[in-house]
């Protein structure tokens, strides 16, 4: 793994010394165990801060639309798909962007660890194994156990768009898109699903970390902040939280790249991903479309065809 880190640092140093980019957006060691934090490197000598491992969970594409000038971004598979969608939607200028692609094994979901060991005191990552010393107890996890839900169903670990590739490629078992989690939820009754989402949404405190962590939520004025018309009150009533989450998910339908950054960003562990996954399944099954695969493509809802399915029509 550290040969990848060396290569990233070398590439970043090269880019900065040649003046090809003004800033390299990457990851550095966070202040808490097992958490990386985004970092903005502007001078060649700072590039030694850059790291790369399974804790690099933020989607750095979220910063690409906010950072001015020429920027290099370290992109995992899902990050690169987000950059592709942003390019399709003319939010980024391609030659302002230098994409340092890194194939990704999947990121760790810390909440899974803390559910068992309590707050993490110390942790060490060795190939395939993570040993954790926690407030409640100590435990050794296999990496597969801790992989974030989005990463377990990920079919694009290798970046789909990049200017340079660091490290090897990851062989993807070409299994068809599996939406087992969505089908499992679909098989529940209406009442069960209604109760599940009501309980999830009752936890939401409307801090908008999910919206701000999402690279594809870049509207100047989000419908949440609009006051004419006033879509939402300031309340945190579970029905209104569902209004916010459903509204946001419908705006992401056919665009969401399933990076899981929204669920990981949520301080209240709301299962935001369940709604986005449902949309991804429908878009895949109905329109055979996956978002952010190639820059020439476009969002699922920007296209149409004469024989799109009409299952939604009212039965007469």
């Amino acid at each position, binding site marked *: 793994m550290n040969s990848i880190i060396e290569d990233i640092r070398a590439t970043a140093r090269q880019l900065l010394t040649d003046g090809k980019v003004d800033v390299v957006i990457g990851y550095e060691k966070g202040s808490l165990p097992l958490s990386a934090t985004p970092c903005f490197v502007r001078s060649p000598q700072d590039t030694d801060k850059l790291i790369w491992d399974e804790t690099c969970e933020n989607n750095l594409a979220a910063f690409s639309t906010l950072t001015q000038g020429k920027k290099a971004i370290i992109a995992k598979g899902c990050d690169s798909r987000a950059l592709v969608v942003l390019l399709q939607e003319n939010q980024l200028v391609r030659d302002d962007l230098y994409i340092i692609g890194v194939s990704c094994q999947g990121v760790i979901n810390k909440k899974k660890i803390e559910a068992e060991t309590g707050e993490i005191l110390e942790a060490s990552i060795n190939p395939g194994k993570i040993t954790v010393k926690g407030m409640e107890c100590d435990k050794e996890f296999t990496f597969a156990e801790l992989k974030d839900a989005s990463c377990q169903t990920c079919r694009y670990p290798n970046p789909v768009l990049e200017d340079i590739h660091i490290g090897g490629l990851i062989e993807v078992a070409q299994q068809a898109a599996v939406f087992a989690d969505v089908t499992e939820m679909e098989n529940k009754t209406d009442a069960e699903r209604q109760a599940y989402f009501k309980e999830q949404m009752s936890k939401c405190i409307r801090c908008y970390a999910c919206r701000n962590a999402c690279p594809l939520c870049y509207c100047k004025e989000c419908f949440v902040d609009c006051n004419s018309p006033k879509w939402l*009150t300031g309340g945190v009533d579970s029905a209104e939280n569902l209004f916010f989450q459903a509204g946001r998910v*419908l705006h992401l339908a056919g665009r969401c790249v399933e990076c899981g950054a929204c669920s990981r960003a949520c301080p209240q562990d709301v299962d935001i991903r369940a709604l986005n996954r*449902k949309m991804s399944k429908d878009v895949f099954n109905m329109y055979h479309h996956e978002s952010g695969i190639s820059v020439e493509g476009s969002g699922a809802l920007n296209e149409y065809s004469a024989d799109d399915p009409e299952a*939604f029509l*009212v039965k007469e």
Partner: protein
Amino acid sequence: MNTETKAFEPKIAAFLCNWCSYAGADLAGVGRFQYPATIRTIRVPCSGRINPLYLLKAMANGADGVLVSGCHPGDCHYMSGNYVARRKFALIDSLLKHVGLEEGRVSFSWVSAAEGVRFAEVVKGVTERVTALGPNKGVFKVEDGGGTNE
């Protein structure tokens, strides 16, 4: 209509596209085709103009049902309006079902300007289904009445 147990009269928000469904509703009126007076019509230029937030907002403010109706695919006044809407409606319908909204609360249909009779049928059908489901049980309805209509 006995007044003691006032039968549940659903309030249905109907988003009708100006060129077809609104004209269809007009034709139903002109042709004296009876249909329940439960719909509150909102005219939109095209079914493609319908923003998913309209439906969520209608239910948040207490609408018991929502009907969305536009031109048949192919004869949209703006050529591709209802094609774009079709994909949107498919995803809205699927998501609403996914979060547990009862089947039949939100209905979508294509009604052309000439189908006055069919418009009346559609409204009757929607009204029956929503009446059967009963009042809006709050999947989106904000409990403490905190609506935001001006």
